[in-house]
C-alpha cells in the first residue's frame, strides 16, 4: 500500500528532466542575452568580448552599458519599438473586433456544430505561418488578385499599393493570429450562465442590452487573455512585417533580425532583444495571472 505522501515524493522527481531542460535551454539563454547586451562588439567569432576574464589571479568583470545606451539614444530603434507597440496594439484591437462576433456566434450554436466550427478555426493555426502570409502576398500585390478584380470591375483605374504597406501588415497579423483570440473568447463565452440571460429577459431586458450588460462584462477575462496572447508575440513578429510590410513598417523583430544577419552586431542585437523582453514583462505577467485563474 502506497501512501499519498510517498506517491507525491516519487512523482515530484518527474519534474527534474523538463525543469533541467527548460533551465538550460530557456532560462540560461535568456540570462546570456542580458550578459552579451552588456559586452562590447569585436571582430571575430563570437563577435563580442567576454564579460568575465580570469587572468590566473583576478576575476575582472567588464560591463559595457554603451550598447543599451546606444539603443536608447538612437532614433531608429526608438522608432521601431514605438511602431511595434502601435502595430501590435491596433492589430490586437482589430483581431478582437473580428474574433468576438465569431466566438460569440460559435457559442450560440448547437453541439455538434460548435466542435466542428472551433476545429475549423484551429486548422489554419496548424498550417505554416509562412504559407499563410505567402498566400496574402499573391492576393495583395500590385498585379495580385485583389487589384485585378478591382481593376476589372472598374472601381479603380490604377492598382492600389497594398502590399509592402502597414495595411498589409495589419491584414497579415489579424489573419495569422485570429485563432489565438477566438479560442480564449470562445471558452469563456461557451461557459456563460444562461440563467442570468433568462432572468434578464424575464425582467424585460432586450437581447442587445442583456448582451452589453451581462455577456460582455462577464467575458472580459477572455478578452484580456486573448488580447495578451495576440499582443505579446505580435510585438516581436518577424515574418509578417518582413514579407507584407514595406520600408516604413520597421518593427523590432525585423530590427533584431537585420542586426544579427546583416550587420552582425550581436551586442546591439542582444540589447534590442533585452529591451523587447522588458517591454513584454507587464503583458506576460497579466497573461500568467489570467491563465492561472482560468485553468483548473
Amino acid at each position, binding site marked *: 500500500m502506497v501512501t499519498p505522501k510517498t*506517491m*507525491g515524493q516519487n512523482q515530484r522527481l518527474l519534474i527534474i528532466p*523538463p525543469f533541467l531542460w527548460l533551465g538550460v535551454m*530557456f532560462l540560461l539563454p535568456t540570462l*546570456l542575452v542580458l550578459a552579451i547586451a552588456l559586452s562590447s562588439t569585436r571582430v571575430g567569432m563570437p563577435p563580442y568580448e567576454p564579460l568575465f576574464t580570469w587572468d590566473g589571479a583576478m576575476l575582472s568583470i567588464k560591463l559595457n552599458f554603451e550598447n543599451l545606451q546606444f539603443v536608447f539614444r538612437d532614433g531608429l530603434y526608438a522608432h521601431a519599438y514605438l511602431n511595434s507597440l502601435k502595430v501590435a496594439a491596433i492589430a490586437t484591437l482589430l483581431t478582437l473586433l473580428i474574433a468576438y462576433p465569431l466566438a460569440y456566434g460559435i457559442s*450560440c450554436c448547437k453541439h455538434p456544430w460548435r*466542435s466542428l466550427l472551433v476545429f475549423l478555426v484551429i486548422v489554419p493555426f*496548424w498550417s505554416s505561418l509562412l504559407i499563410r502570409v505567402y498566400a496574402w502576398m499573391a492576393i495583395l500585390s500590385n498585379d495580385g488578385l485583389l487589384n485585378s478584380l478591382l481593376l476589372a470591375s472598374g472601381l479603380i483605374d490604377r492598382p492600389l499599393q497594398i502590399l509592402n504597406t502597414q495595411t498589409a501588415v495589419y491584414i497579415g497579423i489579424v489573419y495569422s493570429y485570429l485563432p489565438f483570440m477566438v479560442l480564449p473568447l470562445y471558452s469563456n463565452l461557451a461557459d456563460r450562465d444562461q440563467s442570468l440571460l433568462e432572468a434578464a429577459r424575464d425582467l424585460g431586458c432586450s437581447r442587445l442590452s442583456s448582451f452589453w450588460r451581462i455577456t460582455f462584462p462577464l467575458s472580459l477575462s477572455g478578452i484580456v487573455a486573448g488580447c495578451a496572447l495576440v499582443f505579446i508575440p505580435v510585438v516581436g513578429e518577424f*515574418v509578417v512585417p518582413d514579407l507584407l510590410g514595406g520600408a516604413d513598417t520597421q518593427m523590432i523583430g525585423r530590427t533584431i533580425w537585420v542586426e544579427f544577419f546583416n550587420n552582425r552586431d550581436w551586442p546591439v542585437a542582444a540589447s534590442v532583444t533585452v529591451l523587447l523582453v522588458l517591454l513584454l514583462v507587464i503583458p506576460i505577467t497579466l497573461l500568467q495571472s489570467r*491563465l492561472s485563474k482560468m485553468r483548473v
Partner: protein
Amino acid sequence: MSQSRGPSWFNRLSIFVVMLFLYLPIFILVVFSFNKSKLVTVWGGFSTQWYGAALSNAALLDGARVSFVVAAVSATIATALGLPAALVMVRIRRFRGRQVFMGLLAAPMVMPEVVLGVSMLLMFVALGVDRGPLTITLAHATFTMCFAAVVLQSRLAELDPSLEEAARDLGCPPATAFLKVALPNILPALASAWLLSFTLSLDDLVISSFTTGPGASTLPMKIYSQIKFGVTPEINAVSTMILGVVALGLLAAAWSTRGSEAALRGH
C-alpha cells in the same frame, strides 16, 4: 451546456464571413498551384507542371529532408519531456516552485520567436556547440515541449484518478499502475501532442534561422529565401503539398482523439 436558442442571423453571418476570410486565401493558393500560366493571377488552364518542378528542385527536397528529420526527433523529445511536466502540473497541486515551473513552461509559448532564436543562438555559441540540424532540433524541442505539455495536461486532468488508485491498492507499484492504467488512456493525447510538436517544428522559420549553422537549411528557410523575390507557382505547389501533409496529420489526430476536444482545450 445546452443553449436555449439557436444562432441568430447575425451569428450565422459573422461565422460565414470570418470563415471565408480564413479559408479563401488558402483556397486561392491551392487553386493557383494548378495554373498552367507562370503568372500567379491569370488562369491559363489546368496543369500539374509546378508539382513536377517542385519535386525535382534539389534545394527544396534537401530542405524537406532536414525539416522532416528535425521535426520527428524534436517532437519525440518534446513529448517525452512534456509528459512528466504535465503529470507534475496536474497531479501535484502544491509544491515549492510551482509558480516558477508554470512560468517556465508557459513563457516559451508566448515569447516572440525572435527572442527565443537570439537567446538560444547565443547560448550555443557560448558553449561552443557546432550549429546545424542538431541545434535546430534542440531548439525546436524546447518550445514545442511546452505545447505538448499543455495538450497532455488537459487530457490528464480529465483522467479518473480512482482507476490508478485501485491498481495501487491491489498491490501494483505506482510506476506500473501508471504504465498499465493511465498510459493507455492518454495514448491519443500523446499522439496529438507529438503531431502538434511535429507541425510546429515543421513550420518554424525564425528559430531555425537563428539556431542553424552554415549548410543546414530547413524547408521553410528555403521557401523564405525564394519568396523574398516574389510569388511563384512552384512555391504554390510546395505550399499545397505541405498543407496536404498537415491536413492528413490533423485528420489522423482528430481520428485518434475522436473529436478534437483535447487539442482544442490546449490553447
